[in-house]
């Protein structure tokens, strides 16, 4: 392997993160920058797109082109960007509230559309920015001021939903496992089509119980598969702490894209002539 052209610092900005000390998202930022070093693309050829929430603050902490948009719409914005600029590497960064609640519908259709980009959801099972409300992945009995006694709702199962909706690459990692996360992110970016990586990323402020995750996550003991049914069965029956690449499909990526060479519009005009 050649010496890397870029170093981790080339992908980091000088903006200080607003995250709480101990937040898992610091580790995700590290894994992202390490993965970018490994991928070796220049920072200006990478776009990092996000919505709203703690995790969505990440674009400004990179030295790539970034877009910190509105709540829940990062997948739409990034799809437009990637179709318009197929030459860019597009990373979409989200959280469980942004990605699965307000942005839930876009998640389904992004998986279906299969635009060649990588979707990273930092899942901490809580709305942190608004100070501790249950998200779609929160346990039903988790007590909070907004939903006293818990929501009583069945948690959203992002990986299975991604599979059912047609995502081309599905993986789960734990933020604290930087080496494994980096490796998976590199694979996700290199895999054609829509790649989805859920990163369990503890919120130590509102979910101190998640500090335990470092002890409960475990690497998947089975090999990855290209059979979505098999992958779904495994994911449905595991304990939710199983990490690694769980599915790698072969669907062709979304094909429409804007070309740099723009054609002549005269034939469009002629078609209106009587």
């Amino acid at each position, binding site marked *: 392997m050649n010496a890397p052209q870029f170093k981790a610092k080339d992908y980091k900005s000088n903006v200080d993160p607003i995250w709480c000390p101990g937040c898992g998202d610091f580790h995700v930022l590290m894994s992202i920058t390490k993965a970018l070093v490994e991928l070796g693309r220049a920072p200006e050829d990478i776009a990092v797109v996000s919505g709203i929430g703690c995790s969505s603050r990440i674009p*400004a902490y990179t030295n790539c082109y970034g877009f910190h948009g509105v709540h829940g719409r990062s997948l739409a914005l990034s799809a437009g960007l990637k179709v318009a600029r197929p030459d860019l590497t597009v990373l979409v960064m989200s959280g469980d509230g942004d990605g699965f609640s307000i942005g839930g519908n876009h998640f389904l259709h992004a998986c279906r559309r299969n635009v060649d980009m990588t979707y990273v959801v930092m899942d901490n099972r809580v709305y942190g920015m608004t100070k501790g409300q249950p998200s779609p992945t929160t346990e039903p009995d988790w007590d909070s001021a907004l939903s006293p006694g818990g929501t009583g709702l069945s948690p959203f199962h992002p990986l299975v939903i991604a599979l059912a909706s047609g995502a081309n690459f599905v993986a789960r990692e734990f933020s604290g496992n930087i080496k494994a996360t980096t490796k998976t992110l590199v694979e996700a970016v290199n895999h054609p089509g829509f790649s989805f990586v859920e990163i369990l990323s503890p919120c130590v402020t509102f979910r101190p119980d998640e500090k335990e995750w470092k002890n409960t996550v475990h690497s998947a003991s089975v090999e990855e598969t290209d059979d979505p049914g098999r992958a779904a069965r495994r994911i449905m029956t595991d304990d939710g702490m199983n990490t690694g690449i769980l599915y790698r499909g072969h669907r062709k990526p979304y094909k429409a894209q804007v070309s740099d060479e723009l054609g002549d519009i005269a034939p469009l005009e002629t078609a209106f002539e009587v």
Partner: protein
Amino acid sequence: MSSLVPMRESVSFAIVGTGGAGAITAGSILLEAAGRAGWYGLLNRSVGPQIRGGEAAALVRLATSPAVCMSKEFDILVAIDWKNADRFIADMPVSADGVVVADPASGAVPKALSENDTTIHNCALKELAANIPGGRENMISVGLVAGLIGLSLESLMAVVTDKLSNKGNAVVAAGRDCIRTGMAQAAEYEQSYTLKPSPIPDEKRWLITGNEAVGMGAVRGGVRFAAAYPITPATEVLEWLAPSLASIGGALVQAEDELSSINMIIGASFGGRPSITATSGPGLALMMESLGLAAAAEVPIVVVDVMRAGPSTGIATKSEQSDLNIAVYGFHGDAPHVVVAPLSVADCLFTTQWAVHIAEALQTPVIVLSDQSLGQARVLIERPADVAFFANRKTWQPVEDEVYTRYALTAGGVSPMAIPGVKGGQYTADGLTHTVRGTPSSKQSDQKEQMDKRRDKIDAFNFGDHWGLTDGEGDTVILTWGSMSGPASEAQNSLKSEGINVRLVALRQISPFPIDAVEKALEGATQVLVIEQNHTGQFYRHVRSYMDLPGEVHQFHREGPNLIGPEEIAAQIRALISDRKTS
């Protein structure tokens, strides 16, 4: 038929039938053939909410000069059948010296038509069609109308051959036989509505809808990306753009909803590609939050709202000018942006191209307020002139040792935008209040500086003389905007023929409000009549929030679906003038 009847400058006809009976096709063939014969024309569709089996009518006006709106009464009404006629027949009155042609086998002529003096001809359309192998009643209707207005078989067959030759010679021959049969029938009627022949133009005329013209304007302006969510009556913009963009190296993506389509175009534009979407009121409402993002992050985009009767689902297939408020005032926070409105079907092209130019020059969202009456009308026009408006974004190129500041404060408020891929230009576009570098900030000074910047760039922009049009002399003024300019202009012309001179002032630029231009246009006015197609007078209130109107001020506005027509506007003006004389 009588040869003593003088030839006409304009003729209006309606072909009605159940959806799927081919009324719209018949009207379209006649319109296109009229274009080949050197005439101008306009076709509106009147359709019910049903996809098939509802009512459908082609309302057509042909003229020797460009037709800007439908006439109130029709000279000719051909009914392929009368199914569901009760739903719409009141909207298409036939003039006293007009004619109704209908097949008695389709039932009785509706009372609304049979109760006045209009001549009614029975014509066995079904039987005539059945006698021709492959014959269709709608094609007999084409022949009937052609015979009554003096449109040649040759012009018609040129169109029919173009449209049907891919279905085989037998289909073309059946079409020709049907048209001949219809013409022969018409020759037996004593009425005639012969349109004065026009010279065949040197340059080919265009046949285009307002929605297609929006698409063409976008493409001429440099748009190469569109995102789409289907909605009546805007879908045709998107359906035209999909293959058209693909053919010139661009792309259209069908989104899962309008929340997605607006964000897709923001993303594409951030990537350096001029981008557009089209929607109607309900979709525009969904896009509001992200329009604010485009304003705050300074991303150029164009959103076309083909307005329909609202609120909520309203009447999806009918026109209204009732989204002015949401387009101008719907953003949360203080979010300067631009709103423009095309003045005619042909102007949909110019106004959209201009909108792209403004959006790109100002790095701001521009909303184009078209409406159903423009979008779905098909017109014969001269080829719209080429204009120099092309997407021309101020972009950033690397300068040695310069640290890029995306939101730098500049004299005109517009700061150079770095496009991804350009080394050293990396920044994060942000809806959060930000510093000149784009870094999130909650400081008073940053909020003020960036707000001033976004306001100033629009204030400093030279909108040229495209704010609208002013036409005619007179101290009585019709003040209107967007699509109502057509009926207002026609009212002005008919009043002129009565010796009443009225000034028309019609706005294309809605926001920022062109105060100086409008004040100048209204100089010397003693009476101002403000016309618009909505329930509450949104435009009037908008105007009044910027300026006082001179003289006596009157409003005439009405919600859809019934379009305000030139006759009504003329009647309002006559009443104003006579009130003044008597008072």
